[in-house]
């Protein structure tokens, strides 16, 4: 494992009774990168996160965190934001943050100083002495996020970090996450919001029904799911072009016709054919690379309502809508 690796999950499985919650999951998380964990509800993401945090032990496989099995002192280098959130209700915001900061090894003074600075940044400076219960839900969530970052962890594990936040606060949190990444923190982020992954994540793993369905950089994953087809917008009798097997007409918002290619024909060949044809002109030509959202739905197909899944062909069509 390289010095750049923060987490290695090595062929890990976990069962509850006869139910296999996590089945042979295998991935690495690097420092200075945002690593997304995707998957439908109940896919095994939380179990995997809990095993990384040593709350649970895997049945088989090994996990290495920050250079080895998770030690007590390495726990201080981790920041964890659980999916369902809460704080002590009858405690002042600043006391709450200071307590959690000191538990992570900061001195009382340092914890207090950093807590104030973070609160200022989150525009909660004036609420430091308010009780947690007096804050709005969104502000409580920001306070909890501050508690996760306070000790400037080397590994940040965030379960749905922006769920329930308004767009402005989502941006604030997003900036903080990116800043942590830039200073070299490894960020593991589980989310359902695909646009967030495409915007923020460097690499991803997708878990479905306990099994690892996808793994790699965001681009790798998208290209792996690329069809041997192109999307074309313009004028022409596409079916008569050499190398085109089948044409699926423009539908819904795809904004172009989908041209399936023969195996030996590359998109470049097709582009050349269009260019040399007097009867065709194009306004748009792009590879049929699906969005992460499409891939998510395809991989976790069972979770998608049935009317979308009448046939394989339609299922592919769904991927382009």
């Amino acid at each position, binding site marked *: 494992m390289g010095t750049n690796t923060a987490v290695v999950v090595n062929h890990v499985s976990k069962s*509850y*009774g*006869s*139910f296999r*919650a996590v089945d042979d999951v295998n991935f690495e998380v690097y420092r200075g990168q945002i690593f997304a964990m995707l998957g439908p509800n*109940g896919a095994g993401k*939380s*179990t995997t996160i*809990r095993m990384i*945090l*040593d*709350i*649970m032990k895997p*049945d088989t496989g090994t996990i290495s965190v920050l250079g080895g099995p998770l*030690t*007590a*002192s390495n*726990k*201080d280098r*981790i920041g*964890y*934001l*659980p*999916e*369902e*959130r*809460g*704080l*002590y*209700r009858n*405690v002042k915001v600043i006391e709450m943050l200071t*307590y*959690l900061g*000191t*538990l*992570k*090894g900061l001195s009382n003074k340092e914890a207090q100083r950093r807590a104030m600075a973070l609160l200022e940044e989150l525009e909660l400076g004036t609420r430091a002495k308010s009780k947690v219960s007096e804050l709005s839900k969104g502000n409580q969530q920001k306070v909890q996020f501050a*508690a*996760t970052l306070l000790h400037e962890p080397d590994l940040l594990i965030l379960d749905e970090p922006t769920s329930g936040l308004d767009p402005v606060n989502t941006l604030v949190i997003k900036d903080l996450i990116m800043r942590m990444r830039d200073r070299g923190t490894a960020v593991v982020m589980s989310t359902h919001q695909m646009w967030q992954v495409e915007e923020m994540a460097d690499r991803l793993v997708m878990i479905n029904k306990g099994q690892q369905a996808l793994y790699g950089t965001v681009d790798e994953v998208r290209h792996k799911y690329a069809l041997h087809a192109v999307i074309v917008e313009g004028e022409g009798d596409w079916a008569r072009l050499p190398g085109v097997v089948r044409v699926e007409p423009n539908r819904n918002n795809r904004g172009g016709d989908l041209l399936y290619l023969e195996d030996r024909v590359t998109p470049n060949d097709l582009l050349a054919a269009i260019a040399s044809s007097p009867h065709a002109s194009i306004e748009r030509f792009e590879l049929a690379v699906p969005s992460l959202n499409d891939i998510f739905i395809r991989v976790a197909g069972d979770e998608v309502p049935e009317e979308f899944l009448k046939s394989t062909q339609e299922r592919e069509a769904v991927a382009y809508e």
Partner: protein
Amino acid sequence: MSRSMNRSMNKLWLIIRREYLTNVRKPSFLFTAFGTPLILISIVVLVIIISLSSETNIEELAGVGYVDQAGVITPEARSEEYPDLFSPYASEEEARAALDSGTIDAYYVIPENYLATSQVQLYSNESMPSDLEDVFDEFLVSSFLSQITAEVPSTRVLEPVEATLHIESTGRELTEAGITGIILLPLLLAVVFMIGIQLTSGLVMSGLTEEKTNRLIEVLVTTVTPMQLLAGKLIGLGLLGLTQIGAWLVLLALVAVFGPSIPFLEGVVIPLDLIIFSAIYFILGYFMVASLMAAIGVLVGSEMESRQYAGVMSIVLAIPIYLTAAFLSDANGTVPTLLSMFPFTAPMSMIMRLGFVNVPAWQLALSIGILLLTALFFLWASARIFRWGLLLYGKRFNLREIIAVLRGNPDQVSQPETRSLKKEAA
């Protein structure tokens, strides 16, 4: 190595400090710790005063002897109401023998200087009906009246006796005014104990329930170990309980110093052995109840449900207080003895018994032994359940699963989220 030891001790200390400081400042704690025992004790004292004044039964006494060293009692002396109650003894030794053999229940010693001082001594193995002194007054007055001379001052006829009671079985000594005190002290300690254990173990439970409900527990267990969390809470809140007990003991010490000038409390002695045993029973009782409550707190995870368990616990803890009358009439009887062996009622029961009578040493040892073993068992069981229960959400635990966890097979028990999934999959 030693650095990580330091670090983990430091975390334990941080948890102890937080639990102590956040709770000690709560007005609800201050009221429950100090207000409630005062209110409760006033009610109990009132009940005792009423019941004592109604249950005086001189008829039940086998007889009362007297040793007349002053030579003031003539053969003509007699009590109108109880003509056969009093019988003379030539010496204290003879009277003592009669007391030990059960021929009499008590005896007065009228010392040589009695006419000048009015002081007599009353010896018995238990407390005497308060009417007895009136009857003895009357008995003496009838004697004086039969031989009225210039030697007997008229004041002795009007106020013939002031007795000091020596309870031989415990060696404690009281003037009449202090009798209320000897009942009050153990009872006060028992009530303070009960409130202390209930309050602090309740805080252990509600704290955990809160952390579990708001999922802070997940953040905490990725920062500290479950054992640090459990130990930090138990110790922090245990210190809180000791603070409460300590404050009461300071109060009692003040009473001991200034007591003589307060008529109601005159003659109260605070015996050191009682305080030492108080500390032992409080600490053991607290750890037993608090670790049980910690396990419940971590399993239930809803504040309303956990309150129900706390309610049941407080009823069980209060049993000895409800049965105060049984302790007062015979603190070495079957019911008080059994209650002082059963671990959940032992702390309160034993404190009352120790205050009222001489408890046989083997009973004390057995009671502490049972309590210690129970406390250790609950600590162990709670530690086992703790790690498993911390992340168990939204389902009712059952006994079979808890037994599996105690036997060290928590993995055979499924978790709630995945269990519902399994059902979907099937």
